């Protein structure tokens, strides 16, 4: 990542990819990239962090990097990852953003399988993503210092600017996704909804594996008469508070599946964010935090459906804990 900082600072369009321990190893530099406003794009193949040594999929790597100040998106299948990659560059390089963008991809389930996708032509890419014009770069003829010391009397101001930029990038994310949808017919949103119109219970997922298994579970539960829908979080940072509040207000219960655990903390990271978004609001739903699919553990749709039914029943009886790790042998 340090090499990418140098490359991007000289004015090159920069891409890299990492995963799990690799992401953990570059943790220090990730903050530097975003604070220096370098529009690097990185694909992160989400896998568990050791120990015990585990090379399989979960979200513990990205969830330990929530606060790095990057735009963070999730692609839920091969087609989405393909389509979102040029979108990431377009978001990152927009003069209103100028921040790095991370595209998260479920480890193994997406990174190590083959699936058919529709491709774009070179012309499509060229039309959608114009040549890169860096806003600022290292140039011997016009010397500047990038990434200098920021003493106490300016550090707070730099953080405020960074936060404002990341929050405001939300508008550009929507614009770029809409533009992509108009051109190529595949539309993406910061928050995706499935069967939510009449639902009083919502399944809330992040990442492809639980997202797509969740669809099957929702179909099964609907067939059994439960009025359930599903919400998939695509944009993790900046957290889309407005969409989340609009979608979740007035529902009875939300079952949040997290593929990471804040050990000794409040449970799943996505559930925590949802609770923060809904706190103190009238008509907030009951938020049930489930931790599943850690370190590559498969969760089948039938198990998910059972876990959801079980959680909703126990919440109705008022005995659901702050969070629960499901599918654990005890």
């Amino acid at each position, binding site marked *: 990542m340090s090499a990418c900082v140098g490359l991007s600072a000289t004015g090159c369009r920069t891409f890299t990819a990492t995963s799990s321990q690799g992401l953990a190893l570059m943790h220090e530099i990730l903050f530097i990239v975003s604070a220096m406003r370098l529009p690097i794009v990185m694909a992160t193949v989400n896998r568990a962090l050791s120990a015990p040594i585990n090379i399989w999929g979960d979200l513990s790597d990205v969830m330990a990097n929530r606060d790095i100040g990057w735009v963070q998106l999730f692609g839920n299948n091969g087609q989405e990852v393909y389509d979102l990659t040029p979108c990431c560059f377009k978001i990152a390089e927009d003069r209103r953003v100028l921040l790095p963008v991370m595209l998260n991809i479920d480890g193994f389930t997406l990174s190590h399988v083959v699936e058919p996708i529709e491709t774009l032509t070179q012309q499509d890419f060229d039309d959608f993503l114009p040549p890169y014009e860096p806003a600022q770069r290292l140039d011997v003829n016009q010397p500047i210092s*990038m990434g200098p010391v920021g003493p106490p009397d300016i550090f707070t101001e*730099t953080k*405020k600017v960074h936060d404002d930029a990341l929050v405001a990038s939300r508008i550009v994310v929507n614009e770029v996704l809409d533009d992509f949808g108009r051109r190529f017919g595949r539309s993406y949103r910061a928050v995706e909804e499935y069967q939510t119109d009449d639902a009083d219970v919502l399944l809330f997922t992040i990442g492809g594996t639980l997202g797509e298994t969740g669809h099957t579970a929702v179909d099964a539960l609907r067939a059994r008469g439960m009025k359930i829908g599903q919400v998939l979080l695509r944009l993790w940072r900046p957290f889309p508070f407005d969409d989340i509040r609009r979608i979740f207000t007035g529902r009875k219960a939300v079952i949040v599946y997290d593929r990471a655990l804040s050990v000794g903390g409040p449970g799943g990271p996505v559930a925590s964010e949802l609770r923060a978004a809904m706190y103190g609001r009238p008509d907030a739903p009951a938020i049930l935090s489930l931790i599943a699919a850690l370190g590559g553990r498969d969760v089948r749709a039938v198990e998910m459906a059972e876990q959801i039914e079980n959680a909703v029943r126990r919440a109705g009886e008022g005995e659901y804990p702050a969070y629960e790790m499901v599918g654990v042998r005890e």
Partner: protein
Amino acid sequence: MNVKPSTRELALGAAILTPGSAREYHTGGWRTFYPKTDEALCITCGLCWIFCPDACRVITKRENPIPGVLPDYYDFNPDYCKGCGICAQECPTGAIRMIEEGAP
């Protein structure tokens, strides 16, 4: 830095756009105590110069030259002396005393 920039005045990524502007940043502003040197006690041995971590001991003309003694002594550079007190600790004649900035 005398004028502190607001969020609107910071360059992108807090970059510094003016080459060589570090010259304008005087780290002496971090100092709480300054090393007051009594030129009459200074034997110009240069030990303070050797020990000063900021290269801030400077050869200075004596105001009251002493016959038979070198015409220079070592004083401090207020722009970069950070007031660590090492020179005062090391001076063999006790010529340096640390005085609080702004003390009456």
